[in-house]
């Protein structure tokens, strides 16, 4: 019997959800190490790196027995299998190495952008979840105050100073708030599950989120768009990738020029739509024109990306400044609403005759002002997070390769 009990308790314990405590600071590390999309793209970058090695080793002689057997043992025969015995004599094979290196750099930049986006999405979701937990607390507080009001009104009804319709109205309000609490609790639950997925944490585990230290908005100063735009455009991997893609495109043009010396067997990555003749022919000019057009497309995409970044940045800076300009209003609104509520409550405690509906309005005002202020503070946090992502600050900072190399040596 004892054994059965021990086994049963072990079974129950092993099946119960384990809790994971995380903080906002942990999010970027978790995403870097466990996010499914980040991991998948890290594999793509690895493949691109390995392609460089493949193309490098493709310059060395290779053995294809059937080619050798069907080639007569003469000098002319040796020329036929030059791609096999001396692939390094074919310029296009060298270009392939260069091009795959440029693609690797471009993939690295794309990975950096994706990684930053995933980190930002996770951090924003974390912030929103903590905000909603905060809302839930304010809502429960509001519900408590409303219940207190219902009790007072019920007591007053005995003396006939409150109409039954007023009590019914207050009770309806209280039920509505309970429904809001249920909905918000579900939302928090869903947000936590989504956060677990983004951070690569098992769905069986229950997340416990640490509080966020809210910034002192009053102490922050307004931002200037001009100073941010330089940093944002300078740091954006979405723009840097075009530099490498254009470099890679140059190699495609070289393929065309040197195709009379033999071609390379594998593809040209994203530039497969540019036709390359097997030898230098009359189609070469068209190939070059198509590659020029491709280069033009890259320029257009780069310009468009720049404008998209600037558009986002303008909106973020404007949002941030509007938060700073209006924080005083919000704090004042909250203070006045609380003062009003406290005054009515004190009057009620002293036995003065106060209309429960007036009291309800005061509770409602205080609740609205509290929610608005909390929303405001978390709004500043999310705007700052978006700005950090734009300029690659804080968790998003990733050092450029040469700088990283120097710093590694200095350690």
């Amino acid at each position: 019997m004892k054994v059965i009990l021990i086994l049963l308790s072990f079974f129950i314990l092993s099946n119960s959800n384990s809790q994971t405590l995380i903080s906002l600071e942990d999010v970027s590390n978790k995403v870097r190490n466990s996010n499914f999309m980040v991991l998948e793209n890290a594999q793509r970058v690895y493949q691109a790196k390995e392609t460089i090695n493949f193309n490098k080793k493709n310059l060395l002689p290779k053995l294809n027995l059937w080619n050798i057997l069907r080639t007569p043992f003469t000098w002319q025969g040796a020329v036929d299998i030059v791609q096999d015995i001396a692939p390094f004599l074919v310029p296009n094979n060298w270009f392939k190495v260069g091009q795959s290196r440029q693609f690797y750099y471009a993939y690295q930049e794309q990975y950096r952008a994706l990684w930053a986006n995933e980190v930002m999405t996770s951090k924003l979701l974390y912030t929103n979840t903590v905000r909603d937990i905060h809302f839930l607390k304010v809502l429960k507080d509001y519900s408590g105050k409303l219940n207190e009001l219902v009790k007072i009104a019920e007591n007053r009804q005995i003396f006939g100073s409150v109409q039954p319709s007023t009590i019914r109205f207050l009770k309806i309000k209280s039920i509505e708030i309970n429904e809001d609490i249920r909905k918000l609790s579900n939302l928090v639950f869903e947000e936590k599950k989504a956060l677990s997925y983004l951070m690569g944490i098992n769905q069986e585990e229950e997340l416990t989120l640490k509080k966020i230290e809210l910034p002192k908005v009053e102490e922050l100063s307004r931002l200037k768009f001009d100073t941010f735009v330089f940093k944002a455009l300078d740091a954006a991997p979405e723009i840097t990738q075009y530099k490498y893609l254009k470099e890679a495109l140059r190699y495609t043009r070289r393929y065309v020029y040197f195709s009379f010396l033999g071609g390379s067997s594998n593809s040209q990555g994203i530039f497969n739509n540019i036709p390359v003749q097997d030898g230098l022919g009359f189609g070469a000019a068209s190939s070059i024109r198509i590659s020029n057009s491709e280069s033009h497309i890259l320029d257009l995409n780069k310009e468009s990306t720049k404008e998209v970044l600037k558009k986002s940045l303008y909106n973020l800076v404007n949002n941030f400044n509007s938060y700073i300009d209006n924080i005083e209003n919000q704090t004042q609104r909250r203070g006045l609403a609380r003062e009003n509520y406290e005054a009515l409550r004190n009057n009620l405690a002293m036995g003065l005759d106060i209309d429960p509906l007036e009291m309800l309005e005061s509770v409602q005002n205080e609740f609205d002002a509290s929610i608005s202020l909390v929303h405001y503070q978390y709004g500043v946090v999310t705007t700052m997070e978006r700005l950090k992502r734009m300029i690659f600050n804080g968790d998003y900072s990733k050092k450029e390769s040469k700088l990283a190399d120097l710093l590694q040596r200095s350690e």
Partner: protein
Amino acid sequence: MKLFSMFFILMIFTGCRYQSQFDTLKSLAADREYLETNANTPLDNDKQVVIERYFSNIKELSHKLVNDRRFSNNFHKRFFRYFTLDMCDDFVLDVKNWKQILNTCEVSGFYLCAEELKHYQDILKLVPSYLTKLEITNLKKEAQCKDKLVGLGVFDENN
């Protein structure tokens, strides 16, 4: 004529191999002067551009010296031909101005300058181990240069 052309081509390939690095080194002087004058002014677009250029150039040159053996050999060969006592004063930004610039780069908790600026000291500290003793002695000859580099932690105060 043939000989002359060959000589000319040889000159191009040997003499100008590191011309761009030499030009970069020379451009440091103008940028350093701008940064010293504007160390305390609030950050604007022009300042950001100069900061990015100056500190990226410092990084590029250091990276070349550390990683490119050919460049490093060339550097050692030509060090005494081109080295002048005021060079250090011309090219190197001192610790006080560097810190002031670093402060202006922080706006409302955001860092808005080139990443290389933050690691200026670390980059410079790496350089002496790639210089010869004679070169280091020469750098220390000029008191002002020595003070500047000691302040930046490149050289030890006692040695």
